[in-house]
């Protein structure tokens, strides 16, 4: 079986029609993981018992001839920042090395309720902080297309698992591009929904106002299907929106002729790799040939997005990560004699350098005397950026941009230069700051065979349109 190109529909149909069993399918994915993952490093924890139990349930249904739920028997992987009841969840950090959550993340629970088989937990940058997956406290993830290169981050394991055929679909989280950028680097589809579309309950918070859960998949159709399964109001998350969830899969079939596509010059500026630019231009041509109208738009505050993002994100992170104090769960330093010693040593031993850097940045930005200059100003920039998008979306239905200014870089290439690393998110952070949905869909390779991603941004709660365009492009791209 070609695990690498298996779609959700095909996997479910095979189990439903008993061409294979969910159990056998899960076993073949585990075999693939056993053989390939040592080179890639996508998985941190496997959940074979849980997977096989669920698979058996699906097999019973299939044997009785009952219709399987939408993801019945489909093997999926979960980024290790989503808590899973009874299944170790580390957030890629040593501070949670032995943490067994008592509860399930809502998104995971909804996938499982829809029949998905959870293979295991996927590697990521520690607390989702990073753009290369080199900040995992356990091991880096390698890009399945080129093992010398990073898979992107922070959801590197989630992207690599799909790209390497080690899961049909996966869940990731996206705070500044952590789904779209690795999807682009690994050549898969990655979707960040609108803020509030998918419950954040059970997502270990990095920056609460910027964090999103979203799917990775081989196809846009599969992304639509996973989103449909997870989306919708959750009483456990006050910020989850009570907005009707369309049938994203059915919506894909509507045409794209006449769709107005915005191209913002700010996203094709200095620093954009020539090959990426060429690939994007070709993609835009392709969209025009499908009957879309290409319209130039301007998003004038884009240049302030990165600094504003790194202030808001680190400020929220500094509070969100305060709970890892050694008191109730997770690591507690054995060296400590006093209370303040316990805090200092636990957090010093438990957190990696990037996490510490961001906690310090955020703490500083919120401190008396600096709050107005940093946090408050960053929030104002955020408002301006959101208005940029609102006015652009009066003229166009979607905006297309490169997902990342470059294709995947090499391991170690940027790890000593945090600022260069932060700039890898330059095209993705804006959607987090504005809360709008964005999808990255593959749009060709560089000459050296590295994937390039096309990012499509849409209006709040209009995932249907960006999915529809991404689907049309995917079909036309061939």
């Amino acid at each position: 079986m070609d695990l690498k190109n298996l779609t959700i529909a095909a996997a479910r149909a095979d189990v439903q029609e008993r061409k294979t069993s969910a159990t056998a399918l899960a076993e073949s994915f585990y075999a693939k993981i056993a053989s390939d993952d040592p080179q890639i490093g996508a998985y941190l924890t496997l959940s074979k018992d849980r997977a096989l139990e669920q698979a058996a349930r699906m097999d019973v249904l299939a044997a009785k001839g009952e219709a399987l739920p939408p993801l019945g028997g489909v093997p999926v992987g979960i980024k290790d920042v989503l808590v899973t009841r009874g299944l170790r969840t580390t957030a890629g950090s040593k501070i949670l090395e032995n943490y067994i959550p008592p509860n399930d993340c809502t998104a995971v629970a909804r996938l499982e309720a829809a029949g998905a088989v959870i293979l295991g937990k996927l590697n990521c940058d520690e607390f989702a902080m990073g753009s290369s997956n080199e900040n995992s406290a356990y091991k880096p993830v390698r890009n399945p297309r080129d093992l010398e290169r990073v898979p992107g981050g922070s959801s590197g394991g989630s992207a690599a698992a799909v790209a390497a055929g080690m899961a049909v679909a996966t869940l990731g989280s996206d705070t500044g591009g952590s789904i779209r950028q690795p999807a682009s680097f690994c050549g898969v589809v990655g979707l960040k929904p609108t803020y509030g579309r998918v419950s954040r309950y059970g997502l270990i918070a990095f920056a609460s106002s910027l964090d999103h859960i979203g799917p990775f998949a081989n196809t846009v159709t599969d992304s639509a299907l996973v989103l449909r399964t997870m989306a919708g109001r959750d009483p456990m998350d006050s910020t989850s929106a009570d907005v009707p969830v369309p049938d994203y899969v059915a919506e894909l079939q509507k045409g794209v002729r006449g769709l107005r596509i915005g191209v913002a010059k700010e996203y094709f500026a200095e620093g954009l790799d020539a090959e990426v630019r060429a690939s994007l231009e070709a993609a835009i041509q392709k969209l025009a040939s499908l009957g879309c109208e290409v319209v130039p738009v301007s998003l004038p505050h884009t240049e302030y997005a990165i600094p504003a993002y790194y202030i808001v994100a680190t400020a929220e992170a500094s509070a969100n990560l305060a709970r890892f104090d050694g008191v109730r769960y997770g690591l507690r330093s054995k060296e400590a004699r006093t209370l303040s010693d316990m805090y200092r040593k636990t957090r010093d031993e438990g957190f990696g350098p990037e996490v510490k850097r961001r906690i310090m940045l955020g703490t500083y930005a919120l401190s008396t005397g600096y709050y107005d200059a940093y946090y408050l100003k960053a929030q104002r920039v955020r408002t301006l950026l959101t208005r940029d998008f609102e006015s652009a979306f009066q003229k166009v239905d979607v905006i297309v941009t490169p997902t990342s200014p470059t294709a995947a870089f090499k391991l170690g290439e940027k790890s000593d230069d945090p600022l260069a690393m932060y700039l890898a998110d330059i095209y993705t952070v804006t959607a987090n700051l504005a809360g709008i949905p964005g999808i990255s869909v593959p749009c060709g390779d560089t000459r050296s065979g590295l994937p390039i991603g096309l990012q499509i941004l849409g209006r709040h709660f209009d995932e249907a349109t960006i999915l529809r365009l991404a689907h049309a492009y995917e079909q036309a791209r061939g």
Partner: protein
Amino acid sequence: MATASDTLAAIAKYEPVIGLEVHVQLLTNTKIFCSCSTKFGNQPNSNVCPVCLGMPGALPVLNSKTVEYAVLAALALNCQIRETSIFARKNYFYPDLPKGYQISQFDKPIAEHGFIEIKTANGLKKIGITRLHMEEDAGKSLHDGFPDAANKTAVDLNRSGVPLIEIVSEPDIASAEEAYEYLRRLKEIILYTGVSDCNMEEGSLRCDANVSVRLRGQKEFGTKAEVKNVNSFRFIKQAIEYEIERQVELIESGGKVVQESRLYNSQEGRTYSMRSKEQAHDYRYFPEPDLLPLVVDARWQAEIHKQLPELPEGRRHRMVAEYGITEQDAGVLTVTKNFADQFEEAARVSKSPKRVANLVQGELQARLKAYNLDIEHSPISMKGIAMSADLAEAGTISSKILKDLYDLCFERKEDFPAIYEKEKPEQITDTGAIEKIIDEVMAANPKQLEQYRAGKKTVKAFFVGQVMKETKGQASPGLVNELLEKKLEG
């Protein structure tokens, strides 16, 4: 060495400026951001869940009952309700604070600009309320009561996430007495709204006092010290008195007041500086991103307003007008809402509310004091008092018998109706005997008899009273009336 009179003279030169911060626990069944029980006294760490334990990935969801109660309290304290208020994170590390931040409200609290009126020697005084906001309580660090307490601290998180309101006064309070009066009134009002039991022993009412002094006439405030967590109103009064004295002496002897937190030691009657390390806090407040701005629109406010009971001050005015009682009567009778409710229930069915009020303040209070009981635990219910008042009013029982019956109620811990049923004086129903007494009374009071016969019929009541007195209240009032009429008419 300063003498006592020197100290007094020095204090007179200064004007204390006091502001109070009062934390009140709300009586919701569940916590502010999760559905755990708020019950006091359960096994440590039994009322907990991922949210109030601060587990990774857990999120707060606001309990709307908390909002209702906070708004109710705010309305009772004459506050303006802010239509859109914002929760904020207050960041600090402490073992009993699971998330490393407390969810509170900061620059946009639910309510502001309220006031309480207190009685002072110079008449009524308005004490401003700066703000009232909602927040979650922290857990409790335990230092004893478990096996390895000698070298370990344990944490009980049952209280983590219990809803509180914090009520911050303006620095309008000018003495320890005023502070005491403010607290008394505040507690009374909160109790009336029913949103808290204000039980200081269980920590459902806690008070910090900001105290500073300045030379009389000076505009700028002096440096303040914060006296924290004093657990009774009496101690707060003492702590403030001590603090004023301490600060004046310090300044007078050339020293400077340091801005700091101080703890009151009630045994020694003095305040102590807390270690400065514990107060070097920069709380780094910022808006809580896990909660949406809270909107309490006009409609919701109106709905909550409907639940607002009549408050003690207004009730006292009404009771004075309605029952013909004095303001002092009304003050005693409205000590708690429950008690005032009972009084009114009794007063409405009684023929003499004024007599009911008098009995409560006289006979009842005296016995409560003797038995060291508060009015809530009186063996005689308001219904019983109403019954006794009516019997006395009708002359069925004399005041002496009433007193004896009250004594029995307290001795046997039984209500008045039960005691009366068992112990009521034997009535004289012998017509001949009563007639004989009437004759004697008429003979002894010729002047009154003359008045009656001249047409002043109201004098009859005098004769009824005299006959009842002669019979020690044991004559049947019906019979007395009937026979008197005949005899008086001649």
